[in-house]
């Protein structure tokens, strides 16, 4: 590469400006807080740290060139999406508004942070081999737990919407791009700084609160807490942007003929998730802003003795936090229901019921948050209400199961790797859902709340649900995105290892929780050591299965590079009717959608879309 090309708006300048920005911001913050009691004598100036992060973020965005466009417009230059037309591999390392590039950027970034968070999980399980602290001290252990939880929550929020939503939603709705391509790029470029800032908590002494950041523990925590707040805030911002962008795209940019009941079910999943993101993520952002003020400007939102309340944090956090877990689950529903018809060779069974299920889950998810506070000592009169709403959620979730079983029934099932992951999703999510009934029932929740039962429950829904769906989507769509095949043998080994050891890891933890193991402890009753040794060993093998995936990814995408067909799965989905690699503009002309993408077995089905409509749109008839 010529040195000239290193100068300009690219990753290098972004990194340099980001690092420089941190030190500049830190200096400014130190000046700003010079007279503040709360920052004196603590050897941790939260104001300076926040200013450092803020300036680092600005430097990063300036370096990437996010301000070029608004400045150009202010000076009266015409708008342009020139970046979009660029070719070559360089665009993957730059601000690029092509939704397909953003999708792949998201995929690699999310995967990277996902692996880091997974590594922390291995360290956690290593510590839990013994009932007392052996490998790490208590502070390191809690930091590991907090980093694992927060990183996973941050990254899985974007795990499906980021890579596959960005890549395939515009294609599935017959559009050339997202409604707001620059915002789309921004939503991605906020993720790497968020991940890196969160990791910087390690250098700031770690933070002890887990991903829930409960105040007032968060008020008194060490400077690593600032990293949590800033990083999670960035993700909140990114989620809001993604959500708004997706909603605008799906509402306004559908191709002719794409009526609401022809919309691929994955797009419905994305749409429902986006609604949740737009409504829930700003609450997270403002809650974190309050905590920031508590830590820097000495306000007392969460301090009981100074007019605030710890319950304020609990309520606000879970008002975001519970929709958040459905932000994780809904794209998974979308992915598996999208994949099942392809490999069962049958139309999606009960399309409207599936949509109703997703919308129902999305709406109900805003009415259940106090089930996290059943024994908290907040006014308990509403417990029956939250118990009922929580249990009601299993009705729309049940729809998804009926859709799945109905689609599979009398199908001609091909057990491909994406299909295996999609089917495992049902088994895992079922266990996750049924254990949720225990947690929703107040008397039962008394013993299970805050224990490993909860931990096993949400790992069954998030890892067993979302992560399995994520791998289903990866094996299903990544060959389309990269034009390269996965090694099937390694993929099958990955699946079976992951499925078996996932269950071996988390099923015993239901028992551990019920028998009295609280969450997030490095010290537990010695009588539970047997269970923990078994779980840790399984967890390490689960980690090995992830390593196999990584090896497969590198082997298939970098070393072997076997080209994939344009439509390897004989799918009717519109994305598979396009050539591989997908052209920069997606479609030569605006396509006309003629049916939903699930017309398997229909004797004289028309193609899902007329990619080159000859004249006026012909709906329902034959085409070229």
């Amino acid at each position, binding site marked *: 590469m010529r040195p000239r090309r290193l100068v300009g708006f690219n990753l290098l300048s972004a990194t340099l400006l980001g690092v420089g920005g941190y030190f500049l911001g830190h200096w400014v913050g130190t000046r700003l807080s010079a007279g503040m009691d*709360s920052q004196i004598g603590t050897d941790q100036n939260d104001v300076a740290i926040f200013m450092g992060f803020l300036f680092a973020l600005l430097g990063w965005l300036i370096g990437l060139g996010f301000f070029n466009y608004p400045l150009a417009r202010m000076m009266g230059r015409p708008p342009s999406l020139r970046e979009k037309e660029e070719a070559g591999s360089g665009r993957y390392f730059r601000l690029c508004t092509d939704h397909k590039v953003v999708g792949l950027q998201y995929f690699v970034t999310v995967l990277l942070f996902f692996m880091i968070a997974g590594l922390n999980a291995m360290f956690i399980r290593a510590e839990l081999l013994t009932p007392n602290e052996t490998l790490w001290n208590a502070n390191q252990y809690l930091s590991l737990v907090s980093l694992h939880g927060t990183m996973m929550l941050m990254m899985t929020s974007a795990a499906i919407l980021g890579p596959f939503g960005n890549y395939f939603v515009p294609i599935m709705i017959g559009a050339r791009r997202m409604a707001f391509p620059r915002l789309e790029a921004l939503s991605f470029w906020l993720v790497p700084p968020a991940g890196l800032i969160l990791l910087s908590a390690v250098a700031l002494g770690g933070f002890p609160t887990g991903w829930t950041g409960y105040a007032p523990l968060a008020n008194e925590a*060490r400077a690593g807490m600032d990293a949590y707040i800033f990083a999670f805030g960035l993700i909140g911002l990114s989620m809001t942007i993604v959500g708004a962008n997706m909603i605008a795209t799906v509402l306004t940019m559908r191709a002719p003929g794409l009526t609401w009941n022809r919309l691929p079910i994955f797009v419905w999943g994305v749409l429902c998730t986006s609604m949740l993101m737009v409504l829930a993520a700003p609450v997270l952002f403002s809650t974190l802003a309050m905590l920031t003020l508590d830590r820097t400007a000495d306000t007392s939102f969460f301090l009981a003795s100074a007019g605030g309340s710890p319950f304020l944090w609990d309520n606000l956090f879970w008002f975001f936090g519970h929709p958040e877990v459905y932000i994780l689950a809904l794209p998974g529903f979308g992915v598996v229901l999208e994949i099942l018809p392809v490999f069962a060779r049958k139309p999606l069974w009960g399309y409207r019921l599936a949509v109703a299920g997703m919308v129902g889950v999305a709406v109900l998810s805003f009415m259940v948050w106090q089930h996290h506070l059943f024994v908290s000592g907040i006014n308990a009169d509403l417990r029956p209400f939250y118990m009922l709403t929580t249990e009601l959620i299993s009705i729309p979730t049940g729809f998804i199961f009926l859709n799945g079983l109905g689609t599979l029934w009398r199908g001609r099932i091909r057990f491909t790797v994406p299909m295996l992951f999609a089917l495992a999703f049902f088994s895992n999510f079922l266990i996750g859902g049924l254990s949720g009934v225990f947690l929703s029932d107040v008397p039962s929740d008394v013993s299970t709340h805050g224990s490993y039962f909860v931990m096993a429950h949400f790992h069954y829904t998030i890892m067993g649900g979302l992560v399995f769906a994520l791998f289903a989507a990866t094996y299903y769509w990544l060959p389309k995105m990269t034009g390269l095949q996965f090694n099937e043998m390694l993929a099958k080994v990955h699946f079976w290892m992951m499925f078996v050891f996932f269950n071996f890891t988390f099923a015993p933890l239901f028992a551990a929780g019920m028998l009295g193991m609280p969450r997030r402890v490095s010290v537990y009753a010695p009588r539970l050591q047997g269970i923990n040794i078994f779980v840790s060993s399984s967890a390490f093998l689960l980690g090995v299965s992830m390593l196999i995936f990584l090896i497969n990814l590198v082997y298939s995408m970098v070393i072997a590079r076997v080209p994939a067909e344009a439509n390897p799965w004989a799918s009717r989905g519109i994305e598979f009717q396009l050539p591989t690699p997908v052209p920069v503009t997606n479609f030569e002309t605006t396509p006309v959608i003629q049916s939903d993408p699930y017309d398997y077995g229909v004797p004289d089905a028309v193609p899902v879309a007329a990619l080159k409509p000859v004249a006026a749109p012909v709906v329902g008839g034959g085409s070229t």
Partner: protein
Amino acid sequence: MSVGAKALAIGCATALAIVLVALYIVDFLAATPSTVKAASAPGGARLTLQTVASYGHSPHPDWVSYLVQDGGGKWHHTTVFKVPAHSLVHVTIYQYDTATGLRNPFWSQVRGTVGGSMTVDGKTMNALNPDLASHTFAIPDMGISVPLKGVADDAKNQCSVAPCPLSQAHTTVTFTFRTGKPGKYRWQCFVPCAASFIFGNGGPMQSPGWMDGYLVVA
């Protein structure tokens, strides 16, 4: 890209990943306070500690801290102490910090020591006025809790840089306790002594190596 270049790139990336993981383990995870073995004494061991209002050195010059003396008389900035099992441990604490006062006066009583008492500057006591407590030395799992009397606020010649010499203002607290079976016991301070932190419980109160640590009974 040629095969060799690809292999090189992947090899480099893998090596980089391994190096980063190793750095993470070494820098963050393995960076735990070192262990200091208590000096041996008749019937067991002698543990000599001091508490300072401000450590005075990087990385946290303003933080309150414990220090420990090894058998050779050298002061170490750590809070992990090793003592023998089933034996007597004679503890001497030189207390250089001023009083903060206990949040929960329950800890103003001496518990778990031999005779249920301590000596403060030579005087035997079994409890302390909770407002005079500067720190406590407590090992809850062994039932041990000893309140440490603070130096008067207006005392002359106060120490601000560790390790503090005996010539500076301090109180001397001694007590003896008996260790049981081997294990790793946490110990901590129950006085909200972390100045400028909310509740007085932030910073050093949450950090092994400062006001928290382990008693390794072996």
